[in-house]
Structure formats: C-alpha cells, structure tokens
C-alpha cells in the first residue's frame, strides 16, 4: 500500500525550513542578485539553521536525517533563493563523498565542521575538456612517497572559492584509465581557486575555476580506493548531486507558480483580473500539473534512497523532468506578467534566469536521457 502523505514530522521539517528561508535567507537575496556575490551571510545562516547537518550522521555532529528531509529543506530554500539552495546542495555533495566513502579518520576530521558550516565542501569533476564526458578529465595525479601530486584545472565548480574541503577527481599519470578522488583543502600549496564566474542566473552562488599546480596531497586524503575515483564521483553526483538539483528545481517551480497566481489575481484587464481568462488559467494548470508530477518523481527517488537503494536512474529521470519543467514554468510566469515580466523589480525575471542554469548543472538534460535510455534498455 502506498502512502503519499508526508508524516507529521516531515511537515514540521518543511515548516521549519520555510520559516528559516523567509527570515534568514530572503533578506540577503537582493544584494546577491545585485553583486553576484554576498554569499557569506547565507552560508553562515545555513550553518546556524542546521541545514548542513541534515545528511551527516549524529556520531559526527549531524542530524542523521535522510534524503527526503534533505529534499524538503532544499525545496523550501530554493523557493526563496535558488543560488543558496545550489550552494547548499553542492556542499551536500561533498559531504556525501566523505560519509559514504571516507575513512573513520576523514569523517572525524571533516564532518563536524561541515555540520555547522564552519567549513564548506564541494566536488570538483568538470573540466574544460569535459563535464558531460568525465573521462575527458585532464587533471592528473602521481604517487610520490606516499603522497599524491596533482596537476590540472577544473571549471564550473560550485563553491570553488568558498569550499574548504574539495573532493577532486583526477586521472592517474601512470596507470591508464584510472581515476581517483582526493580531498584537497583550501590553503594547500599549489591549490588555488582562480577565476570567479559571473553567471546570468543563480547569482550569489559561487561558481569558479580551480587550479592545481604540483599540489601535494597527503596519502590519507585519498577518498576510497585508488582507481575508484570515477565511480565515487559518479555515484555521489547521480544519487545526491542530481537529487539536489531536483530540490532547486521544485522550489523554483513553486515560486514561479506563486508569483504567476499573485499577478494574475491582481492584474485587471477588461474590467476583471486576468486569472478569469482561460488562456491564463491553462498556463497555471500546466505549471501545477508539472509541479505535482515533479514532486512525485523527486520524493519517490528520495524515499527509495532512504531505504538504502541505488537511485541513479530515478534521479536522472527526476532531474531531467523537474529542471525542464521549471524552465517552462518560469517562461509561463514571465508570459503571464506581460511587459512587467521584463522588469527587474519583478522576481519572475530572476526565476527565468535561475531556471536555465538548472539545465546543465549535475549533467545536461541530454545526458539524463542517455541514462534513462540505458535504464529502459537494460
């Protein structure tokens, strides 16, 4: 028997996350939009609001909650700021690598500070030579006296400049087709966050490039086993990185629907609010149906994940659907606003810009379809 209702506790999590987003995150959004930066206060707020502790086990200072709780929190925060939700979810991606594949020492060393956002995290895979094709990874490593020396460049990395703890994927210089993942820490010699991107959307979310030049990483910073780097990176991205994108997309989609409804009820044309017009109503209906469908895809994947199952396929389908739907919803919302949909004081303009940055994050829509096709044909 399938129960599609949230538990009392989950409803309380949602209420807490919503109140948190409205009081602690929302006030910082205008400056984030204006400057493309100003992430410090929201990172601090995320720490204080216990948002980063959600998927960290209690033994390491976390709340020991699961992926449904994470999705609820991301959805609520994204309604107010997709940029913040993005930084939060990518940090969660870095955390996942350590929780799932880290040694006891690594967990004890990094997780407690990550739980309070005293430290922040990310996972760095994408390079100029390939994101959709991760094997195009050019960042390399070689083993030298029990340590590893890394060289290369990463791009389009969320939290590039903020993260203290970065899980970097690199290819072995010695053994072909062998990838390993390493924890590289901010401040290590030879490791630099270089160029900061100016994105058209998700402004205030820190995205940038990393440079590794003869960066010496101690042996104990290897995550998992040598040669397992690709599967570790892909597993965390497919199960947690894409799950996070679904949270961002659902929150944004809800915000688009709320803004469209509000405007439609207030805007009077032909003597009545435009919400009386069927053309407008049909757009609202489209937005609503897709939001409900996206929620089902997302929460089902999260629930399966909480049961311990591998959910790469479900998340690929959910990520594809929710991010594409959010883009359609943003366009509908802008259209409903008419000329006002081009004016910056109306949040829908930001929603449109945020929506299409959702697309290529954690894998493009085309890659998602490749994964789902494989699922079908397997």
């Amino acid at each position: 028997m399938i129960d599609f209702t949230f538990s009392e506790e989950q409803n309380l999590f949602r209420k807490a996350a919503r109140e948190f987003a409205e009081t602690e995150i929302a006030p910082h959004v205008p400056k984030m939009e204006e400057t493309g930066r100003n992430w410090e206060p929201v990172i601090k707020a995320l720490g204080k609001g216990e948002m980063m502790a959600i998927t960290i086990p209690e033994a390491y200072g976390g709340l020991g909650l699961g992926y449904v709780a994470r999705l609820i929190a991301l959805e609520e925060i994204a309604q107010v700021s997709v940029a913040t939700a993005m930084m939060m979810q990518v940090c969660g991606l870095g955390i996942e690598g350590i929780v799932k594949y880290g040694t006891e020492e690594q967990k004890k060393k990094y997780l407690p500070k990550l739980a309070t956002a005293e430290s922040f995290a990310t996972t760095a895979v994408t390079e100029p030579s390939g994101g959709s094709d991760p094997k195009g990874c050019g960042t390399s490593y070689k083993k030298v006296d029990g340590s590893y020396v890394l060289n290369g460049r990463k791009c389009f990395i969320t939290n590039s400049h903020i993260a203290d703890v970065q899980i970097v994927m690199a290819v072995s210089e010695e053994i072909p087709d062998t990838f390993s993942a390493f924890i590289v820490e901010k401040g290590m010699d030879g490791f630099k966050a270089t160029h900061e991107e100016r994105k058209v959307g998700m402004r205030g979310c820190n995205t940038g490039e990393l440079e590794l030049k003869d960066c010496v990483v101690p042996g104990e910073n290897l995550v998992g086993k040598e040669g397992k780097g690709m599967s570790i990176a892909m597993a965390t991205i497919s199960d947690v990185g894409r799950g996070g994108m679904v949270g961002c997309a659902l929150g944004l989609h809800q915000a688009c629907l709320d803004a469209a409804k509000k405007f439609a009820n207030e805007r009077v044309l032909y003597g009545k609010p435009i919400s009386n017009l069927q053309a407008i109503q049909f757009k609202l209906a489209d937005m609503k149906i897709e939001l409900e469908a996206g929620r089902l895809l997302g929460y089902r994947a999260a629930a399966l994940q909480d049961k311990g199952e591998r959910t790469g396929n479900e998340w690929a389908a959910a990520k594809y659907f929710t991010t594409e739907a959010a883009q359609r919803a943003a366009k509908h919302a802008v259209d409903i606003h008419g000329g006002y949909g081009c004016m910056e004081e109306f949040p829908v303009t930001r929603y449109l810009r945020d929506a299409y940055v959702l697309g290529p994050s954690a894998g493009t829509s085309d890659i998602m379809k490749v994964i789902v096709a494989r699922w079908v044909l397997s």
Partner: protein
Amino acid sequence: MPTESAAVFVIAEQMEGGIQPVSLQLVGKARKLADELGTKVGVILLGQNLTNDSKKIIAAGADLVLQADSEALVPYQSELYTEIIVKLVVEHRPEILLIGSTFMGRELAPLIAARLETGLTAHCIELIISSEGILEQRIPAYGGMITIVCPEKRPQMATIANGVFPSPVLNPDKSGEIISIELPKKFPQRVQTLEIFREKLEGVSLETASVIVAGGAGAGDPEGWNQLEELARILNAGFGSTRPAVDAGWTELETMIGQSGKIVNPDVYIGVGLSGELQHMVGVVGAKIMIAINKDAKSPVFEKVDYGVVEDCRVFVPALVERLKNKESFVGKVR
C-alpha cells in the same frame, strides 16, 4: 431597592478627574434598556472621592449608585474589586450587567463572570431586548453580524467599547439613590497593582481627529508602513490600523480601529491597503467622506467608500505624498 427587582446594572470606572466616558455611555444605554424592560438602572462604582461622580452617574440616567469609596480602591485591584462586585451582584440580582471594555474592564469582566458562572460577550456593538425579554448581544464577525444570547445564566454580561453608544444628555434634576458600600474587613490580595505609569502619546489622537488614515496588510512591510505614516503626518491626520497590521508587528494594538479596538468618528477617512473588513469598518462611525486605496479591484472595501483608487498603495502613497509636499500650505483640522 427591592432585591427581587430585576435591573440593568453597569460597572462604572473612575479615572483621573472623573468617570470614563464609556461608563456614562453605558449608563445612557442601560437607561434605554431598563425603560424597555420596565425596570431600573443600578451602577456600581469603586474608587475614591466618588460623590460628584455618583451624582453625574445619576444625572446620566441611573436610579441607584452603589459606591465603595476608599483609598484601598485606587488604583484598581482585581481581587478586591471582584470580591466587592460579586457580592453586590449576588445581593441585587440584576438581569443585565454591562462593563466598558477598558483595560480594567477587560480583566475584571471575566473574573466576575467566572465567579458568577454566567456568560460574557466581548466587543458588542449593539444591544437589543428581544421579544422574550432577553438581551441580544450583537458583534461583528466574518463579514457579518453575529447575535449571541445568554439564555439561562444571570446576569447577562457584556463588554462594550468607548464610542459605540452615544454620550447621554445629563439631567441634573434626575433623582437617584446613592448607597455606600463597606469594604470587606480583612482581604489578603495575592495580586496587587503597585503603580500606574502613563506613557507619552505621540501623534494625533484617533478619538479626536477629523481626518484619519488607516493602514492595513497592503502596506506590505515596515517600509510600506512608514510611507503610510508619512501620509498621515503630512495630512496632520490620526493614524490608525487594522488587525493584520498589528499582528505583523508594524504598529501597536493601541492604534487598531475596529470592533476590538478603537471607535473613531472622523470627517474624512482614508483606508489604505486594507480590505474593508466589517470588524474594522464598524470602528469608523459617521464619516462624511470615505476613501480607499487598494491594488485589488475586487476588494470589498470599494463597496463601502465614496471614492476609490485601484493602485498599489506602495506606488500611490509616495506619489501622493510627493504631490502634497509640493502644495503650498494646508491644515489638518483637529477638533
């Protein structure tokens, strides 16, 4: 007064330099109710140096004043007042007991009602004797009017705000009886008012303003609220509010106009960003011109005013203020 005689009673409240206006208004109303019932008006008054006050109460229409005069009764003490009043009510057995909804009234009324195990209605704006001789207590709610009765328990109690009923014409020739009430001999009190402090009131008093600007949820946020305040200042108007604005924390309960707040009677009323809820509108009595500014063309407020502007107040008010600043000179009159 024969103890079996049913009567309409009022608990009057003394204030610095006289009687609370609402107390006299209730005596006037009690007179009308008593005349309908063919009975008498009794008033209970606690305080100090009450003789002139009691005489005024009789001139307002009372047949009997039960006055307890002592320094122990100033300031208001809930337990002592309740004890004295309950004893008098049990002795005189009135049918109806009215109290003004002042700060004192709002604490004292339920204490008395609970002791007497009787019903008590808040925020009445109308009192009518039904054909069966029962008091119908009307309160505004949910866009309409609700009638409440207390069919069995006695007395039927209600609190009424200042300004709901008119001030009675005083008749110095009216006769009435004044009886002095003894305080209980030894009465240990577990709660005591130590001292009352008055705070400085800012701005134009709502009760006397001839122009009032009232703001509601449409102000949006504290910044929007400040814009409305500026409009009130420029017009030298009283600045009032509705419940959503108080709940949002933009202003104090003291500024709320309506059924459970203040009753006002300006010449000109300007409602900004509010929906014209009955609970608020009943607080505005006898305005000659009513104007509303609201961004929702469907807002019910537009059915209750003479002039309306469909516009977001956050856009309209700053533009209006700008225009008023450029006007040469003007005076907002205060009665």
